[in-house]
């Protein structure tokens, strides 16, 4: 099978955007940046009134039980799902081919499946200063009580639209449009210099 190319590769990228420790790391590394490269990124959208069936479908296929409420989500490490808009969910799997798995579960009567596996790039930021660095970009409250583990948010930084899921107490997965990924990655690294960052 042909290897998918990441927008962060091939790397004509400057050194400080590549694997290694950068910025003020002598005083400790406080965030770790990586690209998670999931095999599947799907958008599932339910027709009004059919949301519960869709959520059930997500459970059937991924085993993830989504709590009630806007932006609610969950993750088991390999698979993640979260709501990002009324009746709409992002579902992610390490493996490819998740779309076909949903084909017979999310019927046209329930809603639609849109495959975005190539169109979105997944960037992970982890570490004690992850909230601090993200707060430089996004005007949303990253404090744990306001943004619990598993939950998702749709937001933007200037022209870059982003979906963010909190996948740990100090870990966030950010989904950005592929065409913006390189610019956003550069900005993220730049913002991380102050606290010392490592690219994995």
């Amino acid at each position, binding site marked *: 099978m042909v290897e998918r*190319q990441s927008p962060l590769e091939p790397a*004509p990228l400057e050194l400080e955007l590549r694997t290694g420790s950068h*910025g003020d790391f002598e005083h400790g590394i406080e965030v770790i940046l990586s690209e998670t490269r999931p095999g599947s990124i799907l958008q599932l*959208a339910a027709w009004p009134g059919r949301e519960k069936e869709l959520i059930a479908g997500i459970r059937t296929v991924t085993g993830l039980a989504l709590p009630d409420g806007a932006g609610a989500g969950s993750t088991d490490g390999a698979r993640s799902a979260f709501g990002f808009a009324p009746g709409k969910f992002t579902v992610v799997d390490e493996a490819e081919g998740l779309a076909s798995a949903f084909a017979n579960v999310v019927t046209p009567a329930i809603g*639609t499946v849109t495959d975005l596996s190539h*169109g979105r790039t997944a960037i992970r930021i982890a570490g004690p200063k992850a909230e601090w660095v993200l707060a430089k970009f996004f005007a949303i409250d990253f404090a744990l009580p306001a943004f619990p583990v598993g939950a998702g948010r749709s937001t933007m930084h*200037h022209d870059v639209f982003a979906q963010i899921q909190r996948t740990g107490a100090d870990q966030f997965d950010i989904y950005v449009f592929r065409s913006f990924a*390189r610019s956003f990655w550069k900005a993220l690294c730049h913002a991380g210099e*102050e606290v010392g960052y490592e690219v994995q």
Partner: protein
Amino acid sequence: MSPRRTDAGGRIDRLRTIRFTFDGTPYTGHAGDTLASALLANGVTLFGRSFKYHRPRGVLTSGVEEPNALVTVLRGEVREPNIAATMVEIYDGLTAVSQNRFPSLAWDISAANQLGGKLLSAGFYYKTFMGPAIGPLKNTRFWMFCEHFIRRAAGLGRAGTAADTARYERMNAFCDVLVVGSGPAGLMAARAAADQGARVILSELEPHFGGSANWSGETIDGMPAADWAARAAGQLEGYDNVRLLPRTTVWGYYDGNTLAALERVTDHKERPGKGEPRHRYWIIRAKSVVLATGSLERPLVFPGNDRPGVMLAHAAERYANEYGVLAGNRIALFTNNDSAYRSALALKKAGAAIVAIVDVRPELSSEMREFADEAEAKILSGHAVVATEGGKALSGVKVQRFDMANGALAGDTRSIQADCLLMSAGWSPTIHLASQAGAKAEWNEALQAFLPPKATQRWIGAGAFTGSFSTAEAIAEGRAAGLSAAGGTGTPAALPVVEAVPGDPDPAPVFEIRADGESFVDFQHDVTAEDVRLAHREGFISVEHLKRYTTLGMATDQGKSSNIAGLAIMAEALGKPIPEVGTTRFRPPFSAVSIGSLAAERFGDLRPERLTPMHDWHVANGATMYSAGLWYRPMIYGLSGETIEQAYVREARTTRESAGIVDVSTLGKIAVQGPDAAEFLDRVYTNMFSTLAVGKARYGLMLREDGLAFDDGTTWRLGEQDFLMTTTTANAGKVMQHLEYFLDVIWPELKVHVTSVTDEWAGAAIGGPKARAILAACVTGTAVDNATLPFMGIVHGKISGVPVMICRLSFSGEMAFEVYSGAGYGTHVWEALIEAGKPFGLVTYGLEALGTMRIEKGHVTGAEIDGRTTARDLHLDWMLSKKKPFIGSAMMDREGLIAPGRLELVGLISLDNQPLNGGGHIVEALDEANPHDSIGHITACCYSPALGKYIALALVKDGKVRRGTRAHISDPLRNRFGPLEIVSNHFFDPDGSRMHG
């Protein structure tokens, strides 16, 4: 030891000596000094020159409101002009220079302006410099000649042109309670709120928390107030629900309790840490705000009140108590209120001689008399200062009997020797943020000050900000404010005990002493009391007119020290009470904000770059990239030595002769899915889509509601309920919002989902006589012959192991195909196609060749669909379905849209074999000297390899009926004039035989 430094006291670190320069002269100071305190300690009295008269000026204040002591701070080539010396913390190597003087601060030529004082009265420039009404200097010429010199005399510091290498960052913060100001009130508020478990941010514009506690000399909880404040701040540091922001000025109060603040992170450091920003721009969204911003002392207005050595009373007190610096050795005070007496005592204790306290009030309280005695100061009650003596430094003052009731002066003037005069006209609460937040301030007669307006947003005031000037009140109000801001019910910590200095907060209502000589109201702008009276004489009596006519309060300090005195003088002239003259609404920012901080992370990176999956391949293979909106696209793939025209002509010609391939990944792509998708498309497109068969594509046109053309593109039916819509690159976002609006607002009953999939697909358009053969050579899993893949047909297959979707459609007019694959496979498929194309002479082409071929075909793009053209203007009326209504159908036939004389799309052929310029106009008769009567303009042009001519598309008045006629290009801007023929926009292969193959 420097002349003015006390032996002990203050919070400066006397063990650490700091070296810096001012105007090239090396000085030393101590850690904790500001530039102002350090220079004062070195006996410097002359800090700057005023704006208009270039008068010598010293330092008036000790804080953010400083109007006089402005300097430029240099960091290598990078200049930071107009910084108050009172706000600059010194560091080793600090280089500061004075401003607005030539050749030097001490000897400034423009000081000659003072001689013309009366001539240069307020608004004088409106009355002259108009010049003669006739002759060579008529109209604006004479004024512009004078303006040249006026501009050079005006202005303060000089801005740099060297790019600033510092970095700036933005920080989004959320909290329950934002406390602005860390005086006793602020500290108590933060503590009370934090104890309730609220998320608290405490901001302080100075380097140290504590505000007035740092210099009041009072005792709180049995310890010096400064120590109490330090302890309180230290305790707050221990809370993990509290964020302390020193050196942070909250400068803006915006809607929704959003506040803007500037943190000066490294201005006080020799050099920043790695990645450390110079300024951090905090955008704080607070559930509630406690405003504990304190108050500002006001100067008195009297002749010579601007001489270096004249200072605000509390400023001198601060310099003594906080920095261990004496503003003078022989100090006189001039006041209308009690607070100056405390200052006198403090300075006496610090080692200065207090030669006199001049008080406009006839009667003084016994406490004040005791203070004076303790300070060994002679009291001159019922007196006023009527003049100051000395040159660039004060040598003495003249005083005279003064009757508060009528402002009359009487008796002989007597001179008092002094090297420093301290003045106090009472205090004004710092209500700027509350005023920004919305309401009008209220005048308080007793305090002779404007008090905060009623809250229109969620804020609570505390301390001097509310007019409660005593520390005991401040502490009580602070705790209460913090408690209620946190919505707390728990019991707060006990109130500290304050041993306050006695004193009546109410000043006498005296702001100006009218005597001979210039009395300054706005120091920086040289606005005198006479200027205010002149404004009154000329009818500029509303406070806004006063401000604008005299420029009172428009200087860098924004009137912090001049506002009230100006109002008082105008009120007296009008015989009205001050509130009837009114106060101006304060606008953001509270104090000036670096532009770098506001641009923050976007400084140097205004917009993100948007790249296609094949971007790196293009760059590596010699493409010249072209910035199209946020995208980058190949313009040409030039060979060495080729001009742009040679390159695109080669690319276009080769494409028509064999084949060419172009990256079309930037086209907007929108998935339109759901049972009502076809119905929805019928409503948004002018033509039918419900009749489109699965596996087929169709060209579609959209109109705006007003009936004008909006966007075009092909839409592919991938399934019964599954469409892939393509839009122009430029309009992708607009079309998406257009669709979402109609689905969400107008037709919520339609079951349709729209999703942007632009980034999901890499797109390559391959066209030309050999295109099909090339695909046949590399596509597996499907045939690509005419039967399997007819015009506008879609097939699915694989290229080099990667699934692809191929649609046969043509923009170039050739037999052409668009090959879509997952973006992650984009480069892989692109390279496979190029490999397969080698034997067939496949060429990569860019935007220029793409444009050339579309012009030859007469296809329209954004240059023709420019928001002013209709489908008819573009000869697309064949696409307007009569079978159904669609967006724009009801309005597209309004009289103005079908009237004769509209600009219509035509083709142009150059008749002199010279290029036709984009943006050139069309005329029937040439008049190079004096061009007129344009009948239209060129929207796109090129050299057409297919026709061997320079051609263009144009929008021309009644263009359709002009086909076959001759006209001229008239392009005076580029001096291009010449004959051309107006033809149909379909230059090449009008019957489409090539693409239908």
